[in-house]
């Protein structure tokens, strides 16, 4: 039992990390001082990368804040501000349906991520112990689904056949597993803490205990990343809504509701001049579209730092040894 207890202790107090955080810009003592040429090259590369990423972001934000006149004068996305307004955001955020949809999205994302992570973590660990019973067969079973699928309709028929039409679970279960994610998790787990696991096993710990007390705490980075992958997937999910609850607007998640804003400008082709379009808002569709993009990014910007935090946990295993 001794080994496991020490592991837990270490997980709770990642001491070296805390030290590093305080002395933010200092390098570890063993690392040689940076060369000027190296730093310059690095700086230039990262500068270019940043520029290439930030310019489009700028364009998107400016366009989302532009008046219809500004968008139309630009003939597309706006680069230089030329008449700014918060109209697009006002239109969207002032809508009560958006608020309900936000709750729905949060719920689906939370529950879905939980389900997906539980299933995936268990499955990945279950397959990560090499030479275990039937693991190659099960892996093959998983991998096959990455390349062969029956198509949209049969899946739809299975889900509706199980009574999933209009049900919340139809937004979660059919796409709860990403085999790709399981493979990544498994790859991390199978190279993780073999010594610790062996020690724990000698101490009589079962697989459930090992997963919970050793594997999970020592691979927090990849766990966080997978939760991010799944969470983002649920947050942005779209297609299942369209298939399984296309007309239950009170159940729609945020992305789907926002999407209807994006398309209000498209209208119908060849429609007669019978007042179509009188329903169009004064705000240019393009600025609405970009506001939707910005709104999509906001939650990611909020969540990402929490994921990022775990990228520094590599030192943790080092602490256990001592």
């Amino acid at each position: 039992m001794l080994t496991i207890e020490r592991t837990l202790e270490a997980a709770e107090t990642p001491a070296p990390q805390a030290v590093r955080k305080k002395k933010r810009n200092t390098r570890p003592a063993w690392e040689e001082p940076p060369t000027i040429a190296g730093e310059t090259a690095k700086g230039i590369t990262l500068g270019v990368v940043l520029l290439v990423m930030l310019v489009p972001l700028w364009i998107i934000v400016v366009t989302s804040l532009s008046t219809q006149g500004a968008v139309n004068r630009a003939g597309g996305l706006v680069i230089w501000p030329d008449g700014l307004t918060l109209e697009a955001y006002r239109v969207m955020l002032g809508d009560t349906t958006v608020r309900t949809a936000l709750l729905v999205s949060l719920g689906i994302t939370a529950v879905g991520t939980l389900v997906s992570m539980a299933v995936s973590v268990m499955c990945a660990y279950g397959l990560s112990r090499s030479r275990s019973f039937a693991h190659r067969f099960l892996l093959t079973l998983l991998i096959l689904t990455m390349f062969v699928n029956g198509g949209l309709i049969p899946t739809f028929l299975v889900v509706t056949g199980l009574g999933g039409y209009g049900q919340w679970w139809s937004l979660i279960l059919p796409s709860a597993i990403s085999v790709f994610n399981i493979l990544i998790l498994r790859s991390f787990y199978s190279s993780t803490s073999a010594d610790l696991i062996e020690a724990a096993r000698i101490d009589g710990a079962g697989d459930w205990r090992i997963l919970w007390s050793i594997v999970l705490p020592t691979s927090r980075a990849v766990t966080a990343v997978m939760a991010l992958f799944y969470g983002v997937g649920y947050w942005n999910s779209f297609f299942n809504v369209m298939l399984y609850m296309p007309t239950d607007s009170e159940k729609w998640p945020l992305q789907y509701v926002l999407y209807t804003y994006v398309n209000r400008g498209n209208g119908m082709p060849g429609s007669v001049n019978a007042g179509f379009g009188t329903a169009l808002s004064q705000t240019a569709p393009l600025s609405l579209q970009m506001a939707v993009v910005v709104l999509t990014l906001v939650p990611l910007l909020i969540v990402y730092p929490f994921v990022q935090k775990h990228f520094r946990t590599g030192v943790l295993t080092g602490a256990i040894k001592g």
Partner: protein
Amino acid sequence: MGNELNRRSFLNVAVSAAGLVAMGPLLSACGSGPAQRAGVGSEAALKAVLPAYVPNTAIKPDIASIAGGPDVMTNPGFLSYPANRVATVSGIPGKGGTYSAVTPLWGTIPPADNAFYTAMNKALGVQLQMKPADGNNYNTIIPTMTASKRLPDWIQLPTWWNSQMNVGGLVGNQLADLTPYLSGDNIKKYSNLAAIPTAAWRAGAWGEKLYGIPSFATGFQIAGTLYYRRDILEAKGITADQVKSADDLMNLGKELTDAKNGVWAFDDVYRYLYTSFGAPLKWRVDNGKLVHLYETEEFYAALDWNNRLATAGYVHPDALAGDNANGNTRFFGGKTLISSGGTGTWNLADHQSGQAANPNYRRGALNIIAADGKSALRVDMGPGANIMSYLNINLKPEQIEECLAIANYLAAPYGSAEFTMVNFGVEGTHFTVVDGVPTATEAGKKEVQAQTFPFLAAPAAATNSPGVPAVTKDYLAWQAANVKALAKPVFWSMNISMPQAQATADAGQQVEDAMKDCIHGKKSVAEVREAVASWKTSGGGDKLIQWTNDNVLQKHGTGQ
């Protein structure tokens, strides 16, 4: 078949805008049995069941319709909103039934339970559960419903998706036959429905039976036309009537393109211009022989001209890069001066969008031309209506009658009390009258403007642009100038259901692809000819022509 163009251009928009796979029809995996499609019926039998046409005279438009050829007329126009809102329906039409209704909505879906729905239900005397679905994915959503047999009581199926949604297979299987209720004089029970022109009912007829209830019927249905920036061109001394031939257009390209200042004369115009070269919309009968568009020399002449237009550098590069979604924005911004689009583009909202960029903005449409400047002017007309709603086959006769009574209310003419209710809501709550123009309140914008009910039934189109009468005047003046050119194409308004192999050939994807590259200046006309040659043999083109000749032309004629 006339709406082929609309469907295509719509698909393009939908695909590029949403990027979602239009997998619609794939979904109907569990069919009900060996394929049975309703298709074209005998012309005489259909004529016998078409509803009587009784025009509504209660409200006089400011600009009266002008008749063209058979089934052709310009829209009536209203320059102001009628002050005296005549009631056309006496009493409450419904008897307390409960119905679910699904319509597409290109816009924000209103809250599920709102004051407008409540008020409407009260006025209609039924519980109509409106379930609007996202319009851009509608062609994926509907086949899921039909696959699992979950159609609501009342549903909207736009005609340009007829083949994708298998309407030909749904009528009689999942959708109710309305012939007993509406044929001939039976329709007179529903005076507002009776005021919808016959051509529109024909578009909803399958195999000698009536199924669809048309919305926004119009006698001036064309796929689209060439638009120009009237304000900018007139400032340069160019007017629409100076453009009489393809050469005139080409010269305008040279004159107007100013790439250094980011201005190109043209956006993509091929789709709405090729028939001006004398090419048929899709089919033509030469001396009794059925000829497909791809077999005509005029088709290649049109391609050649558009190819030259592109290679000469007169077409906006974004259009050549396949970006259609921002075509309107380019037009508003004056980056392109001549563009093309459906006639629905020209309305109040367009005017307001354009003016936001430039206060002088004025949209105009070029007149229909003959490419050689000499031939007779001609533009092919589409079916009498593109928006078609259907009732579920499981409804009992008295329920169908109740729904038709509701449809009659929804089809009340422009300016009537019912129309005002359906389109503007409750006065004081959803709109107020400002200078004679019903103006939406915040609640009105959210709940009413989304336009859900008119997709179940609506009166024949009346052009209007409340508050800006100039738009209506411009538009109807153009219609009046061109109404004589409208003519029925071969197989006009015939709902043809083809076997899968023919439908595939009919789509002619390999030719369409080569064609697009040609009008974008990337492939020569000769290469399109090669694509057509292979389409005729291995692509099933010859078989399509044979099939159409045997099953449509020989049996039912041209429908003209």
